[in-house]
């Protein structure tokens, strides 16, 4: 075999990636070729040096910080999309509501068709001026059904189409945003979906906290899986420690399962706020008292906490969990 092929084998030999026959052949060549032997020795030494001196790995706290920032960035990405579209998209993807919303959509289409057919003075755009030349909207409703004279309609994003008033008319488009009031039981599915949305996506932490509190106050024992997943996400990743704590407390009241256990272990491992870690370990201990066990990997988290957590209570409780597990 040619010399250059053996030379190509050197990195493979260093990594023990040659098969048995190739290794025998390679060893034979090394005995006869000083150049390849020197190259092999050099690469082997480098390999050993790198094995003995690994570069620093990101620690848990650094990873936690990076995740916090990522979560903020993702929230921004999500909020950049039209929020009404997101909300409607979320509602319409829920199977339970598809028929109800399908029917409602059909009704709306029917009303709209009837309106187009019977209307006598079609109003597609808001128009009209008073004698002072001011745009006058008080007596008009636009095609979207908003009464623009109402104080709660917010007008934004005005784009002019025709600014030339010489012919007596101008034309423009704007967005009319109107608050929607919902009233009903906390157990109402529609209300729960809006609360879930706000828990995950609203920027104001107070609103997120309120949403969790309202879901917590729900009289039924178990929320559906969408809400549970949202609470898990908040418990792990909300940027506000108080919101995270409230989500952890809510989880502790739900039926304990693998997802909840993993979330609590994650919080115990990664939450920088000791109060949240305390809540997590308390919930885990309560589950253990009810007979839920931990795997070896999970116990290793408690071992780490027993020696390394800055909080004395957590160290003590971690030790208790380990003793109870024997």
């Amino acid at each position, binding site marked *: 075999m040619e010399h250059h092929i053996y030379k190509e084998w050197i990195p493979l030999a260093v990594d023990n990636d040659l098969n048995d026959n190739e290794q025998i052949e390679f060893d034979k060549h090394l005995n006869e070729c000083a150049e390849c032997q020197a190259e092999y020795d050099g690469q082997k030494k480098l390999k050993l040096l790198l094995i*003995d001196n690994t570069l620093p790995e990101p620690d848990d706290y650094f990873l936690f910080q990076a995740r916090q920032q990522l979560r903020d960035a993702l929230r921004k990405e999500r909020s950049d999309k039209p929020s009404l579209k997101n909300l409607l998209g979320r509602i319409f993807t829920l199977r339970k509501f598809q028929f109800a919303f399908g029917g409602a959509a059909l009704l709306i289409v029917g009303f709209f068709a009837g309106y187009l057919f019977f209307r006598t003075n079609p109003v597609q755009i808001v128009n009209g001026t008073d004698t002072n030349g001011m745009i006058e909207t008080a007596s008009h409703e636009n095609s979207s059904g908003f009464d623009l004279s109402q104080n709660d309609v917010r007008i934004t994003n005005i784009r002019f189409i025709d600014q030339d008033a010489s012919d007596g008319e101008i034309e423009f488009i704007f967005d009319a945003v109107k608050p929607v009031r919902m009233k009903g039981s906390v157990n109402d599915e529609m209300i729960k979906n809006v609360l879930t949305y706000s828990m995950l996506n609203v920027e104001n932490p107070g609103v997120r906290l309120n949403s969790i509190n309202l879901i917590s106050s729900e009289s039924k024992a178990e929320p559906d899986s969408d809400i549970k997943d949202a609470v898990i996400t908040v418990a792990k990743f909300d940027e506000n420690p108080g919101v995270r704590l409230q989500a952890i407390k809510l989880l502790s009241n739900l039926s304990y399962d693998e997802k909840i256990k993993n979330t609590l272990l994650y919080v115990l491992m990664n939450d920088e706020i000791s109060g949240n870690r305390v809540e997590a370990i308390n919930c885990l201990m309560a589950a253990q008292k009810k007979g839920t066990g931990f795997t070896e990997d999970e116990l290793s988290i408690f071992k780490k906490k027993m020696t390394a957590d800055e909080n004395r209570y957590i160290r003590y409780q971690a030790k208790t969990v380990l003793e109870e597990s024997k």
Partner: protein
Amino acid sequence: MALSDTDLIYKAQAGDSSSFEELVFRYDKRVLSMALKYVQNKDDAKDIYQEVFIRVFKGLKNFQFKSEFSTWLFRITTNVCLTHYAKNKKRINVPINEEFDEEDNGGVILENEHNYSSPEKHLSSNEISEKINEAVDKLSPKQKMIFLMKHFEGYKLKEIALIMDCQEGTVKKYLFEANHKMRKLLKNIY
């Protein structure tokens, strides 16, 4: 039982944010690790980490399973690392074919080479790691990426070629050059 990557991707593509996060957290430590080793700076590593996952977030809806998710993810990671270097480069960018020459270092800046001219056999482990870091930082962007993936992330040559979207022979060439340069730069500490 934990969901597979494929299940999580389908759910994430349907808008399930917790599935997306679960998917992210399966791999993000490796992404952060690679970024940290590549840029050797925590703030920059976090920027790269964030950029990678924002790209994943935006691109996931179009992910068509033509490759493993992990391959796609680490391809994005290598691209973001290399782009980061290009944005922040303070050194002269030398084409790969001219980058390394055993005789004259091929124009690569070795301004601290005198640091390696005297035997330093009794360095502590931290000091050696620091020297390795400095030497790695003197590799060209692609050499550095391939060297780190091979020696510190444990990838096989075939996997690196897949991630970097190039021929295995190209990976071998970069790795050969990187190994030689590293040996030269570190010759006094082993």
